[in-house]
């Protein structure tokens, strides 16, 4: 299978700024494998995630996601691509408070026909597919119809992971999803997230400042503190 991600001489600079917020010479992530991106705040982690998700475009260089030159596509296509191929997990507050747990999980399939069809190819119905994801992430069935506010933070993050994995996206991006969790919950979350990404064949890009998490990943990328210096990919 092709690469989930490949980056070539990437640089990003906010308009009006003199220094690059982010620069990466070269990065390659095979399909289905996982990457840990570490760096202190201000090192461009968020920028990288926005670039990978196609919300931002690089100032220089090329980002290919699933062998598609994402960085060279128009905005509308990048948004479509994100809906179809990428699952995204935020640091916190991932879920829409006005939908039930299971409706939140089904949301990606309502916004992407491709993921809707993929979900239906693995289960009888959307609800069944969502139930499968929730079960995989250890959310008991008694919570599925509950409002999001009834869940603990740890449970909410696992629901967010279930949603990210809905409809078999080729790439899952996680933006410090463990920062609000206590240590026990972190281990639990990391186990199920990396385990299920592997089981379902989704590549995972995971950003955190917590170096202890590196052991769950195949590859590691270290971003430096904000300075006009170069970053290097370490594998």
């Amino acid at each position, binding site marked *: 299978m092709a690469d989930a991600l490949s980056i070539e001489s990437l640089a990003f600079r906010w308009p009006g700024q003199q220094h690059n917020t982010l620069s990466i010479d070269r990065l390659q992530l095979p399909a289905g494998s996982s990457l840990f991106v570490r760096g202190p705040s201000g090192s461009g982690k*968020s920028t990288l*995630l*926005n670039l990978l*998700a196609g*919300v*931002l475009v690089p100032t220089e260089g090329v980002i290919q996601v699933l062998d598609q030159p994402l960085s060279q596509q128009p*905005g*509308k296509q990048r*948004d*479509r691509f*994100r*809906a*179809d191929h*990428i699952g*995204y997990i*935020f640091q916190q*507050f*991932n*879920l*829409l*408070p*006005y*939908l039930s747990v299971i409706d939140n999980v089904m*949301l*990606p399939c*309502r*916004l*992407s026909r491709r993921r809707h069809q993929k979900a239906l190819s693995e289960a009888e119905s959307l609800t069944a597919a969502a139930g499968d994801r929730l079960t995989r992430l250890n959310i008991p069935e008694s919570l599925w119809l509950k409002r999001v506010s009834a869940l603990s933070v740890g449970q909410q993050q696992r629901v967010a992971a279930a949603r990210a994995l809905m409809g078999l996206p080729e790439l899952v991006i996680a*933006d410090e999803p463990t920062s609000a969790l206590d240590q026990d919950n972190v281990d639990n979350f990391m186990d199920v997230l990396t385990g299920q990404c592997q089981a379902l064949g989704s590549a995972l890009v995971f950003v955190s400042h917590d170096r202890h998490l590196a052991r769950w990943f195949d590859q590691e990328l270290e971003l430096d503190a904000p300075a006009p210096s170069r970053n290097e990919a370490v594998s």
Partner: protein
Amino acid sequence: MNWIRLALASLWNRRTTALLTLGMVALSLSLLLTVDRVREDTRASFSNTLSGTDLIVGGRTGALNLLLYSVFRIGNATNNISWESYSDLSRNSAVAWTVPLSLGDSHRGYRVIGTTTDYFEHYQYGRNQALSFNSGEPFDDVYDVVLGAEVAAVLDYRPGDELVVAHGLGSTSFANHDDKPFTVVGILNATGTPVDRSVHVPLEGITAMHVDWQQGIKLPGLSISADEARTMDLTPESVTAVLVGMKSRVQTFSFQRLINQYRAEPLSAIIPGATLQELWQLIGIAENALIAVSFMVVVTGLLGMVTVILAGLNERRREMAILRALGARPGHILGLLMLESGLYGVAGLLAGLLLHWGVIALASIWVQGTYGIQLTLALPSPSLLMVLAGFIGLAFLAGLLPGWKAYRQSLSDGLTAST
């Protein structure tokens, strides 16, 4: 599709604010709807009151005043027409019929009309509908009385009952013609016009009541009983106004000129339709002011709604970021907010219509009784429907403002909204 469901769920999540906003929009629209309905119904009610009468003749006075006191029982006559002049004009060869009206007395707040039986034959309202009797028949005797539908219903009179007429107008009077009671002989069907609120007696009855009165007070020491009065000459000295039907419509204008130049006495003759137009022009100014105010209230409602959506936007940055992460385009975010704004408009219109109908249903009872104007529960007039369609469009367009802000916000926030 799914966006509508999302917009609805999101609104439901903010339902206190949403319901208050909806109430604001609904209230502003119901004001516009109600003002317009009252305007339409008032016009209809005025236009329907008199038909088939070519001219109204009275003592020299303003055209509007003559129309108001003779037909709508509003205001008072300043001058009367002498019986000689009345007889003279009714004998004119161009005149088909005349109905004399003598006003000035009342019964428990309802005006008493002295007239002849020609009234029941020639008075027409609406689309040339004649008066008809619910029970009984036209008056025959001097002391007979025929009641309008509302008078009979409210005061619970039946044929055979007796009533006493008060001198002057007003619902309580200290000067009553209680020595000459009248007997109810007929009750008219409802017409939706001031006729319903009128008490009709023969001209002779009016004269009989006043034989022992002078200058509005009962002459002390002089008392003429009802039966004694019968034997006297009860031809009235004057009448207040005369409804005139011409043999041919073509003669209306020349006859009007004739009366306006009448030598023996200063008289006025008006064409009811033309004078009604004058009334509309006068009322039109006030109406337009009311409509303008209603429009401003609707615009204020829209502005309020946009303000509420704008104010809530910051708290919803998370929501927008989540939708963006799931693949929503900035255009989707813009659309979502326009949809929300439009939903306020549509739901506000529906709620406003219901509120308007509720208000009309409740108010119509009181308005009918007090002003004799029948308010109808109906769809808005075609021209107002166009305005309402425009309002819905405007409600969606108003979403452009918060939509544009959210669009900019979601572009700059990307997936990393920190709030």
